[in-house]
């Protein structure tokens, strides 16, 4: 068992216990910078752990989550790498240091722990939460259709057996409700990045309507900058734009809700694969994926810092 986060194997996939142990190790090693907060419990009673990177009180916040869709393993693995990258670079990288001297970063590495555990124990291809649906033999809700913005619209399914089932009501999933409560109680998040895989896209609101977000021009230009940074490392092909114009209509999605809560810099990523492995991205691609994504995250975080609102 790795005894320090330096010994941790970042180029491999890990189960939930190992990831949670990693978080505890990181907090123990860097207690001046990182703390763990528990924002709620999953349906099956697992803690919803968030790493808080903070250098002072009353800072505005930046949120990053990975792994809301449990089978997208490269996202949780990238989240682990991001956490280590933050503690490594603070005090060394002047841009990150400046960001952290002014903003807290909240990182939820396993947003859907029940689903993630299920992918390790029972069904590697599981995507949704694990809450049963009364009256149906099909289990789980798509936690990226469960948010209270255009909840239940045509860009989600009302069929509990569908991969995009929106759930019985907005925020019915404790994994979603915990973030909702956190965002509302914090009240001062300035950027929100929700990370998925795969198809290599950087998307901003809206998913539910063709009406452009009021900050569309700025969001679009920032997406262009972030993707330029990302591509500078390995030339990975990315597209960007609003969710509805770039992929499809999606109702009740995370970043539409966060944007309508007033978090202007709301983005969602779709990380690699480049078209050969889909959700089964080989472990040797974890670090390159995380490295390139980090450049885009940094671009968005730096812009957030430089453009207070």
């Amino acid at each position, binding site marked *: *068992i790795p005894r320090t986060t330096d010994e941790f*194997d970042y180029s*491999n*996939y*890990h*189960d939930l216990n190992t990831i949670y142990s990693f978080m505890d190790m990181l907090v123990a090693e860097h207690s001046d910078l990182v703390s763990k907060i528990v924002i709620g419990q999953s349906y099956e009673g697992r803690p919803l752990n968030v790493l808080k990177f903070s250098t002072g009180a009353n800072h505005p916040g930046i949120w990053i989550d990975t792994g809301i869709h449990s089978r997208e393993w490269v996202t949780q693995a990238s989240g682990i790498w991001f956490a280590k990258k933050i503690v490594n670079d603070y005090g060394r990288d002047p841009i990150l240091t400046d960001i952290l001297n002014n903003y807290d970063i909240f990182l939820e590495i396993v947003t859907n722990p029940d689903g993630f555990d299920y992918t390790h*124990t*029972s*069904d*590697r*291809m599981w995507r949704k939460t694990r809450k049963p649906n009364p009256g149906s033999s099909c289990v789980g809700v798509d936690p990226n259709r469960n948010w209270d913005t255009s909840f239940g619209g045509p860009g989600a399914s009302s069929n509990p*057996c569908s*991969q995009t089932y929106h759930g019985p009501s907005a925020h019915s999933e404790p994994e979603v409700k915990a973030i909702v409560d956190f965002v509302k109680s914090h009240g001062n998040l300035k950027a929100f990045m929700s990370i998925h895989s*795969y*198809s290599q896209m950087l998307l901003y609101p809206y998913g539910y309507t063709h009406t452009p977000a009021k900050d569309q021009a700025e969001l679009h230009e920032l997406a262009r900058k972030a993707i330029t940074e990302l591509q500078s490392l390995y030339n990975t092909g990315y597209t960007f734009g609003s969710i509805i114009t770039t*992929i*499809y209509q999606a109702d009740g999605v995370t970043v539409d809700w966060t944007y309508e809560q007033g978090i202007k810099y709301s983005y969602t990523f779709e990380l690699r694969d480049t*078209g*050969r*492995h*889909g*959700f*089964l991205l*080989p*472990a040797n691609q974890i670090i390159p994926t995380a490295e390139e994504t980090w450049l885009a995250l940094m671009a968005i975080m730096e812009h957030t810092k430089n453009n207070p609102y």
Partner: protein
Amino acid sequence: KETFEGHQVLRITAKDEAQITLLKEISQQVHLGLDFWREPIRESLPVDVCVPFNSLQAVRAFLAYNHFEYCVMIEDVQALLDEEQRQMLKSRP
């Protein structure tokens, strides 16, 4: 534990709206057990679908009959999963 022996992931390129509609129709056929990793949306976006071994023949026939262009993205899903498990075990002490 769910296994995926012989499951294949097909990457399908639809050439027009009519083919997108056909893919949407087949996605509704629950008995085929299809798992659309990338859904049929528009011609410019590829469609990736995980097809259980038992449905492969029917799906390939459907694609051929309707003149779809497609390739096999993953030949055997379980083989990739086995490799993934091997890698994970290797990293454990």
